[in-house]
Each structure stands twice: as C-alpha cells, then as structure tokens.
C-alpha cells in the first residue's frame, strides 16, 4: 500500500515538473519567427504603419543588453581571427563592429560567439546571435531555412593555385592534371562538375583537412590545388616560395559571403542592410574614418544625408540615431578601408579586389542611395 502511494505521489510530482517546463517557453512568448499578431508602430508625423509581431524585438534586445551578439570565427585568417592579445579582428569582425557602432555608438560593444560550421545555422534560427558574420556563403536553401541574408560584402569563388611557370591559365590547360582537394566538401563537388562540364579529366588527390592539402601541394604531390580564392590567397603566403605560385583568374563556384540576421524582424534586417550599404556608399563618396566630421559639411546633399545631418535616411523608422551610419564609418572606415586593412598591401595577405570593387569601378559592389 505504501509503495503504491509512493509511486502515485512520484507521478504527481513528475507531471507537475513536466507541466512547469512545458509552460515556461509559452508564457514568455518571444519566439522571433511567429507572425501571428500585429503591433502598431507610430511614426511621428506620418500615417500609422502596422508591423508584424517580432518587428523591433532584436533592436530592443540589443539596446537593453547594451551589447550586440555576433556569431563569428576565431580561426580564419583575414576574416575572423585573434590578435596577440586575444582580441577579435578580421573582415567579418569589422562588419559586426560597424553594426555595434551604428546601434550602440560603441564598436567594442560586441560579444563574439565563436561558431562552427555545424552550429552557425541553428545559432541564427534560435536567435542566439543577433548577427551572423562568419564567412557564410549565401544560397537559397540557407536563406529559406536559417534567416535573412543582408548584403553580400565579399564575392568569393572557388579557383585554383598553380605554379607561376606551369603554363596553366584556363581550365582546359588542366586536362589530366592531379588536383589536391579536401574530401567530402562542396569544393570537391564543384571541382568534379566543372571538369565534367568542360569534358576534361583530372586525378584527385584528396585529404581530410585543408592544411594537408596545402602541404601536399607545397611538396609538389599535385599540379594544382583548389579552394576559395580568399583561402588560396592566404595559403600562398605560407608556402615555401610564395612568388612561385599564382591564383587563376576565374572561379568555378559562387561563394557570396553575406552577413545574415534572424528571420522575423524586418526592422533589424533593414537596419543591418543599411549599415552594410553605408560602408559601400561611403567609399563611393570618399568618406573615410578620418574625414567623417569634415564631410558632414560637404557640398553634396547625399553625403550630408548619409552622415545624418540632413533629412532622414530611415533612422526614425529603424529606431537609431541620425548619426548611426556616421558612427559606423568612423569606427571601422568605409568598405575600401576595411578591405585594405586585411587584404590590401599592408594586410595579412594580399588579394586583388576583383569583383569586390565598387560597381562604379567595374566591381560588383552596389548599394541603393541612402537618403
């Protein structure tokens, strides 16, 4: 009898615990992806705009926390790595700092969460990070599943590294070549389809990890090695004789590296896009981290609008200060400054700007007018 009572009481306790656990998430009700109700956002002097639930939640969260949570890397040279003192630096890292400077006025108000390839998607889906700036290639599936991809800030693509005197310049020149490649990656798939499309043959020498690929290439065990252009440029510096190797000038895949934000908050999505555009636009207008104050009194109305001294570039709706974009540019510089910091002549490795040049200079970087 006592035993039965005991079991019954245990079951009651267990069910209470379960009920409590089940109730908790529902009562807080902050899942960023549900679009069921609408909230009304009043914009002074304008008509009332209805916005889906979720609108503005991330900005409110970031401001309350006083810190931007940014998903990144600590182990990718040039994009996201550590300096000697353990500070996060790199191209992707600077994009996070630009957003933090725009929203909070402080480029150091960032908490970097190191993410692996496996958990970057879930980190965005769950809203654990406010911004994912981790060398992520934008593709339609990820866009559908993970969140919203903002503005492509780095056009990368798979290419080849070959000996400077090998006489290889096109895909055709590589017919029958041995190619060093990491196994089981999209890199290997791209290689196979590129050669199959061109009706060429090759002999693959595969390795589990990237470092082995490059040491094998360095030792001359294969004619060419293949990976993303940015990675090959970094690797070239570490080869025994960097000058004896060159990158080919074409790509066989689209790796459009794009910062992404969680789904369900259009305000945050727009805000991050605008910050990215402002970095590109600043380079077009010649606004640098050094001359922002000076440019505020520029003759050009578009420059004054961008820097927030005239008109409204959308900041009222986006919930930030008029000087938000000016702060971002002051903190990290314009796109060209960021690029050159890591991939220019004084950067960690040199990579020709190619497609990552402004549209007006023949590259692919464009931004709508900020006004």
């Amino acid at each position, binding site marked *: 009898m006592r035993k039965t009572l005991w079991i019954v009481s245990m079951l009651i306790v267990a069910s209470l615990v379960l009920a409590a656990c089940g109730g908790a998430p529902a009562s807080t009700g902050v899942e960023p992806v549900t679009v069921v109700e609408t909230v009304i956002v009043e914009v002074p002097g304008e008509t009332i705009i209805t916005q889906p639930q979720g609108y503005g939640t991330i900005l409110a969260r970031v401001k309350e926390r006083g810190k931007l949570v940014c998903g990144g890397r600590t182990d990718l040279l040039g994009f996201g790595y*550590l300096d000697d*003192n353990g500070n996060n630096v790199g191209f992707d890292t600077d994009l996070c700092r630009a957003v933090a400077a725009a929203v909070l006025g402080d480029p150091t108000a960032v908490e970097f969460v190191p993410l692996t390839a496996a958990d970057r998607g879930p980190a965005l889906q769950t809203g654990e990070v406010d911004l994912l700036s981790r060398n992520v290639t934008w593709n339609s599936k990820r866009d559908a599943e993970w969140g919203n991809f903002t503005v492509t800030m780095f056009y990368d693509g798979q290419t080849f590294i070959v000996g400077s005197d090998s006489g290889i310049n096109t895909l055709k020149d590589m017919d029958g070549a041995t190619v060093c490649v990491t196994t089981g990656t999209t890199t290997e798939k791209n290689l196979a389809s590129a050669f199959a499309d061109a009706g060429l043959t090759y002999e693959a020498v595969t390795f589990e990890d990237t470092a082995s690929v490059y040491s094998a290439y360095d030792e001359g065990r294969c004619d060419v090695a293949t990976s993303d252009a940015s990675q090959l440029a*970094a690797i*070239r510096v570490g080869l025994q004789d960097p000058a004896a190797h060159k990158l080919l000038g074409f790509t066989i895949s689209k790796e459009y590296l794009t910062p992404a934000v969680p789904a369900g908050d259009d305000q945050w999505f727009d805000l991050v896009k605008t910050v990215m555009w402002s970095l590109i636009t600043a380079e077009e207008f010649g606004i640098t981290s050094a001359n922002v104050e000076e440019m505020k009194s520029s003759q050009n109305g578009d420059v004054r609008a961008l820097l927030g001294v005239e008109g409204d570039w959308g900041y009222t709706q986006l919930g930030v200060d008029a000087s938000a974009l000016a702060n971002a540019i002051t903190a990290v510089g314009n796109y060209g400054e960021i690029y050159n910091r890591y991939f220019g002549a004084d950067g960690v490795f040199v990579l020709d700007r190619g497609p990552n040049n402004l549209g007006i200079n023949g590259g692919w970087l464009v931004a709508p007018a900020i006004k």
Partner: protein
Amino acid sequence: MIVKPNTQSPPDPPGPVAWLIKNLFSNWFNSLLTLISLSIIYFAAASVLSWVFTTADWRPVVGAPLLYLIGQYPRDQMWRPGLSLWLIMFLIGMSWGVWEKYVKAFAIFLAILLGIFAIVPLETATITLGVRAAFLINPVLIYLGYLIGKNKIVNGQHVITLWIFVSSLIVLVLLPGFEGIPFLPKVETTVWGGLLVTLLLAVGGIVLSFPIGVLLALGRRSSLPVVKIFSILFIEVIRGVPLITILFMFSIILALFLPAESRIDRVLRALIGMTVFSAAYMAENVRGGLQSIPPGQIEAARAIGLNNFQTMVLIVLPQALRAVIPSIVGQFISLFKDTTLVVIVGINDLLGIGKSILGSDPEFVRLQAEMYIFIALIFWVFSYFMSQASLKLEKTLGVGVR
C-alpha cells in the same frame, strides 16, 4: 670460541660489461638483434631530436602563451585568472603538505614549471614584467601552502573544505564577475578559453558527475520502481549515444526549444553535456563496486542496528568505491581528454585556441604539427599525474589485496 659464520656473501652483482654480455650479446642471434634495435633507436631518436631542435618552427607555441592559458579573457582583467592561479597553487601546496605522497610530484612539477615560465625568455610582447613577477610568486605560494599543510593542526577535511570554497569562489564570483560592479565587471564565458576552459570543463565534469553517478548507481539497484526505471533509462540512453551527439544535443537542439531570451551559456551547456555523459558511465562503474559487496556486509550492518542510509553510507559505499578506484580514475582521465570535443560546439578550449592561433598568421598554416604536439604534451602531463596519484591511492587502500 667464535664460530666463523659459514655463510658466504652473495656474489657481487655482475659488472656492466658482464651484464651486457649476459643480456644483450649472449649469442650471435641476440647480438644481431641488439645491434639492429640500437640502430633503429638511434636513427629514430636522431631524427626526432633534429626535427624538434632544427626543422620545427615553434612560433605558434611560444608566441602566444597567454592565449593558451586563458584564451580571450580581457587583458585588463588579468588579475582575476592570476589571483585564481595563486589561490589554486596555494591549495595545491597545502594538499602536498597533507597528502604528501599523492600530490608531491605534481606540486613540485608545477612549481618548477611556473618558475621556468616566469623567467624563460620568450619572443613575445604579451608577457610583461608584471606577468613574469606574478608567475614567480606561484612556486613561493606552493611552498608556503606546503609548510602550512604539513602542520598537524591542518587535516584533510580542512583542505577539502577550502578547495570547495575557493573553487566555487573562483568559478562563480572571481572569473565571471557581475553586471554593474566596477572592480569586478562581467566577463562572458564566450571569451574564456585555453587551459582555463579545459580545466574548468574537466574538473567541473568530474566533480559534478561523481555524486550524480553514485546516486544513479544506487537508483538502479533501488527497489522503488520509478527511481529504478528512471535510472536504468537514463544510464542506458546516455551510454548508447556518443559524447559528440550529446554535446550537439545540448548546444544546438536544446536551444531550439528554448525562447531566445533564455540563452544558456555555451560553456555551461557543454559542461552539462559532459556531466550527464560522465555520470552515466560513473553509475555503471559504481554499480560494479556495489555488486562486489557480499550481502553478509549488509546483513551484519542491519544486525548492529544501522538503518538503510547508515548501511549505505558507512558500510557499503566506502567498500564499493574503494574497489572501483582504478576504473573511476580511468573515467576521469578519459573525461579530461574528451573535453577537446567541445571544439565542435564552438568553445575555444586548449585545442580550439591552438587552431585559432594557427589561423592568426599565414605562415602558421604549415605548423600544425608543432601545435598539436604541444597540446598533446599538456594533456599527457595532466593525465600522467592523475594516473600516478591513483596508483598510489590504490596501494594505500590495498585495492586488490585482502
């Protein structure tokens, strides 16, 4: 009359030449084997040594010692891990004084290592004179702790209490800090890294999984069906799943079910995962010990009027745990090494920091062998001292001897 003793002293031990002839060159075949083995050893040693001292480029190892130790912990808050190290070294010194034989080798080794680290010239600007001075205090603290620990007034219970108090203080107060306190600002665990996180996960996992494991083992043998079924389910489910899956489960899937606000700290998630995993194995180890206790022990305990709880705590568990010390220590060592798996959930432990250091300079990409060897060495040292301490503990407790 004095009788001259008839006994002869035993023959002198053979000289080195005689020993060589007897053991290595007794016939032509053994001589040949000896020569071949010697040449293999010679060439292996020569190539390893020449690699270590000439070919190998140790820049990724010596260039960023602070990164290996504390990861990205803010450099303006370095006094906090520094003070933690002092406290721990003092306690290790005290433990050396109290449990002389188990801790002595480790304490002396640490004292020498930290002393060397303080004075060895490294080509890096991150190790300032202040850092060196702070490190130089560690051996002094170990010795001071030893002198105090040797004192008869101090016993093991005092030291254990101090360990619990000090380590909770370090992990809960000193290192994380608090929001809004100026002299102890909050430091998110996302910037903790290196050896700090590795030790935190290992020691945290070991300390937390032990009591849970014992409870699960008792639960599995319990006569209460709910407790029994829960324990069996827990143990069998966790043991049937690889650690890597559990880490993924806790760091990714769990987050999908929780609201965005209730962000559980990543290091904590990994710690929970490791604890849960280790507890299930611990439970099976302890159960083995429990089964080895003859029923007569329990009957005898009942006969002298002990209740269930007393029987368990005073009679059964001490014997059961004693019997399974080797497997428990083995479990701890493997947990310690398994902490490297947290790299895959984005925590910069010792291995993760090593990988990050390789990514900080294009010339380091070729130097991964050096980094991995260095990290393997660190793990070996800790594991070695753990297994040595366990061997001595077994001898003292007479495990396997009746």
